[in-house]
């Protein structure tokens, strides 16, 4: 499905933010992409959603060499990919419904069924009251859900989500994860970049771990060696929750894991 071979990436003339990345994602697989802030998660996703070309190496997607793809061939690839951007990238002048319908319109769809379909999905992510709202009037979590709905509306072959649960409460986060898992069951290859260890620990999935531009892969059962990950959100909430004065590292409890949500 996706094959990276010794891929390197840099921004402009800067040093490589991704070094020698090699991996292979099987069709229908589910992966978490983790790593500290600035490790290069978003950058790796950018290569996969074809927003950036690698500075070296070879990327094969959908059995085609995307490095050799011309500009006019890119839309064909992009239409098979659903992306949840870390900064959402919604169109501010369109309503929530229109934003979500956009991938369908672009693919040539029209008519009332689209709207119905979109509204159903938005209802599912808990936005039934905000259909006609425009992004500037939405909260961060609401925007995130619109972005997610837009990414999954076309049931893409590949779903790339960058911090999809970063701005929502745990209940919505579970809902969203459930949605992703359902889609994954239907065959969508899924890569979710996240800092949210709760989500990671809840779900059995392969791990891609980035640190300092290098990638390590772990199977579903393997434990990822904990590094000095600093999670401000976790830090703060645990501190308050437990009324403790010192930070306590959140350690995943093996028994706490569930397969679903």
């Amino acid at each position, binding site marked *: 499905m996706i094959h990276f071979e010794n891929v390197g990436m840099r921004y402009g003339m800067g040093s490589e933010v991704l070094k020698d990345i090699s991996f292979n994602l099987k069709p229908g697989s589910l992966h978490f992409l983790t790593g500290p802030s600035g490790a290069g998660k978003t950058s790796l996703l950018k290569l996969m959603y074809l927003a950036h070309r690698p500075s070296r190496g070879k990327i094969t997607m959908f059995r085609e060499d995307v490095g050799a793809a011309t500009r006019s061939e890119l839309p064909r690839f992009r239409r098979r990919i659903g992306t949840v951007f870390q900064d959402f990238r919604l169109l501010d*002048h369109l309503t929530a419904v229109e934003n979500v319908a956009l991938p369908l319109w*672009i693919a040539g769809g029209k008519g009332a069924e689209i709207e119905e379909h979109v509204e159903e999905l938005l209802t599912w992510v808990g936005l039934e009251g905000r259909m006609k709202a425009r992004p500037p009037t939405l909260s961060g979590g609401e925007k995130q859900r619109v972005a997610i709905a837009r990414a999954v509306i076309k049931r893409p072959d590949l779903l790339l989500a960058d911090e999809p649960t970063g701005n929502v409460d745990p209940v919505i986060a579970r809902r969203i994860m459930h949605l992703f898992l359902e889609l994954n069951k239907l065959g969508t290859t899924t890569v979710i970049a996240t800092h949210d260890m709760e989500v990671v620990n809840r779900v059995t999935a392969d791990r891609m771990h980035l640190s300092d531009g290098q990638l390590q892969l772990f199977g579903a059962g393997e434990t990822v060696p904990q590094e000095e990950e600093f999670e401000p959100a976790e830090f703060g909430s645990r501190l308050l929750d437990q009324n403790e004065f010192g930070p306590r590292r959140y350690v995943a409890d093996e028994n706490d894991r569930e397969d679903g949500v």
Partner: protein
Amino acid sequence: MTQAVHFLPDEKSHEATRLLPYVMAVMVYLSALALMGSMMLHKGFGEWTETLSNRLTVQITTADPDIRYAQLQEVTKLLRNTPGIEYVRVLNDIEIEKLLEPWLGEGNVTSDLPVPDILDVTVSRSMTVNLDALRGMLSKVSENIHLDDHQQWLGRFLRLMDTVEYTALGILLLVVMATICMVIFGTKAGMAENRETIAVMHHLGAKDGMIARAFQDRFMKYGLKGGIIGLLLAFLTLTSLIFLSRDLASDLVKVPDFPIVQVAILLIIPFFAALIAMMTARMTVLRNLGRMV
């Protein structure tokens, strides 16, 4: 044709290009005036030169009225007997007075003013008259007889007409060029303003053609809107100009009529403006997108 997806912000919120229709209106106004002016002059001059081209004027400026009268009789006879001349008419005093009035002022043409006799001669269109021979014969009658075939006049007139028309054409060309530049400018501004929107559209799999379509549709509308406003203003201007000039017209210079057919042709100007705007916007978008990653 690519499907139209309305992904750009509402035109009303479109700061960079919202004034474009009005500039388009000015451009269309200018080109419509240039075109209308030249078409009306063309038609008016055309008719006029047509009437003049088979006319000769003979003037007898002999001061003594009796001798002048005798010469008039002789010249009339001579002209009537010349092959190729169809019709000879002697202008009466009132007609001559009218001709002189624009120069001398009304009521100033008094009977004691020495006024020449004038003959209006119509030449057959199918036969050529040997003007040199005719001139020779007339000068034998008197040195005070002048034959004017208007050729010098007409030649200058035709040159002026050509100049006017080339100028109008030049103005038209300049206006079209300015319009194209303006649309390029506007399209680029619009693209810069919607940079992020375009990037998102690309990520969602939109082709360049779809993005170009949105811009070309918008600029086509601007062109049409501006075109209609500009043309209406041009008609208004022209109508009032004709209305005003009717009062000033003398019998010598006839104000051209409103050439309905030609002016109807001008109705395509707004569509032409829309077409230029559309094509320019499309090419600008495609060229500039091609430079993006």
